[in-house]
């Protein structure tokens, strides 16, 4: 536990550049997506508890305002994780592109935000 805390302190306090923060966001979004998948599997399993529980989860809880806000975070997480993963794969196969990595991260973030904004508006339409 002490080693984990020390590592987290290093990660947060290190003054890295775009690659460092993209890596951190990649990890956080990965954890968020894993958490969502666990919730998703559990809620599908709830069908075994009868229609009342299942319908409550899917027709009341998941369409509530807090759930929609979480969904917006999920959209950003999935978009960023996918785009950043693609960036890493491309650089792995073309290591020479590494010298442009700071620009590539900025372009990647711009593309993610451009896709994210309309997706977030559509998702929040019902609750705004």
């Amino acid at each position: 536990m002490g080693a984990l805390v020390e590592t987290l302190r290093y990660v947060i306090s290190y003054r890295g550049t775009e690659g460092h923060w993209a890596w951190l966001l990649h990890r956080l979004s990965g954890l968020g997506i894993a958490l969502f998948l666990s919730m998703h599997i559990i809620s599908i399993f709830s069908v075994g508890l009868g229609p009342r529980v299942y319908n409550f989860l899917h027709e009341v809880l998941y369409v509530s305002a807090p759930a929609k806000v979480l969904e917006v975070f999920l959209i950003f997480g999935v978009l960023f994780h996918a785009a950043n993963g693609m960036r890493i794969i491309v650089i792995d196969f073309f290591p020479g592109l590494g010298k442009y990595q700071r620009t590539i991260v900025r372009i990647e973030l711009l593309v993610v935000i451009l896709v994210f904004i309309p997706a977030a508006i559509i998702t929040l339409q019902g609750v705004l």
Partner: protein
Amino acid sequence: MRVKMRIRRFNPEKDSKPWWGEYEVEVEPTDRVLDALHQVKWYQDGTLTLRRSCAHGICGSDAMVINGRNALACKVLMRDVGKVCVVEPLRGLPLIKDLVVDMEPFFAKYRAVMPWLVNDEIPDHGERLQSPEARERYDDTTKCILCAACTTSCPSFWANEHYIGPAAIVQAHRFIFDDRDRAAVERLRILNDRDGVWRCRTVFNCVQACPREIDVTKAIGEVKLAILEAL
């Protein structure tokens, strides 16, 4: 200019955990962080412990964390650090005292990649000749001075002390792509280990930290591709 030096201190004989020491120094903007540390050690607190040898960016002994980023103290100018200069020992290696860490785990990984030329064939002439193009292939990775700034800036290394680290991969790259060497496959096997080259997460901290401006991540990427092709 007057600068406050915030230095991470630790004396294993007295302290149970590290603490921050603060010292005011008067420096020229063109002085290096090393000069400021010397001022503290020579005129304020002689117990401050740090490593340095050549003091000109060649020996690589004074790598440390300066304002949150790995660098050589003898290469960072005071005009670039601002009014407060925070200095810490390298991360991820056992702390011995103040700014001195135990480099042995780092050198053990260096030795693990066989950083020497392996070739039992007898050359046609007195020496092994190499074309300028073949020499150029690995030129970048010959610049490494083993300061450990890259390895200790790597989040994969912070999280897993067994990870071989960027410096050892750079050293392996220097011989893997040397056309006079005959042990490339053996080195690639060593780096194909679970704590080898695949632990690199393409974070690029190593590239930023390298005082010799080696394109470390490119070297690691080339080793990854060489493993895919050779093994």
